[in-house]
């Protein structure tokens, strides 16, 4: 029960952080990616602000276990492979097209109307389409 409550609080804080930071505004996100236009550096401050407490958390986690039991996630290290590169490029193209990545698409669902639902449905379909690729990569690992 506590696990669910903490997850709910973390999700809510993530959502509010995305709204406050301006990352739910697709014009701002595309402004960051638009280096040839009126470049908007806000996203760098968002990233920097987010990495700070997160780096502290990783340092604190060393030698400890999660407060509510279990283990910390191990470093998934298939190294830098084609899958990582190709997937990230595909994601980047879609991100630039829409100004949406998964977090803000969910946080701004209430404000994005039908278009937001269409994006999320297409995103869910894309995730489902990735299942064979994920399965193939897993079986190749042996």
């Amino acid at each position, binding site marked *: 029960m506590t696990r669910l409550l903490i997850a709910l609080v973390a999700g809510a804080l993530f959502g509010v952080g995305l709204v406050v930071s301006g990352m739910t505004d697709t014009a701002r996100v595309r402004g960051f990616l638009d280096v040839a236009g009126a470049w908007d550096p806000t996203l760098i401050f968002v990233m920097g602000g987010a990495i700070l407490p997160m780096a502290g958390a990783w340092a604190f986690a060393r030698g400890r276990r999660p407060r509510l039991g279990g283990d910390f996630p191990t470093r998934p290290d298939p190294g830098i492979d084609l899958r990582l590169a190709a997937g990230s490029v595909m994601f980047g193209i879609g991100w630039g097209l829409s100004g949406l990545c998964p977090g803000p698409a969910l946080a701004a669902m209430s404000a994005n109307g039908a278009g937001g639902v269409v994006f999320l449905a297409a995103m869910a379909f894309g995730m489902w389409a*990735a299942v064979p690729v994920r399965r193939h990569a897993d079986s190749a690992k042996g």
Partner: protein
Amino acid sequence: METSWIYGLIGGLMIGCAGAVFLLFNGRIMGASGIFGGLIDGSAGGRAPEYAAFLLGLVALPALIGVPDTHLTDNWTVLIAAGFLVGLGTRIANGCTSGHGVCGISRLSPRGIIATLLYVGAGVASVALFRHGLGVV
């Protein structure tokens, strides 16, 4: 707006604190694509209830406090193509801006750093092509 970086920094700190709480208490990586995708394809397994609770908070609190204008395009062709690429790409690469970006870079993960350079680079190229080249967005 010249004060936008302050809101960016404050919002960013909130995002980082959310990730820190999810990691230190539940032992989970706060990656939006992993959480949403894990529920879509069932790979979340036993983590599914926590992921669902996280999503509920992520969608509900912004809805309650209100989200300012998102300037989302009303071009459904663009939304469908972009959504598909974001979903497929993040699941193939195993992460997005929150997983590879925030959680990966903060632990100096080479994968997170390379992924971030690639999706930002592809995003820049995408805006250059579709906005300045083809004028579709």
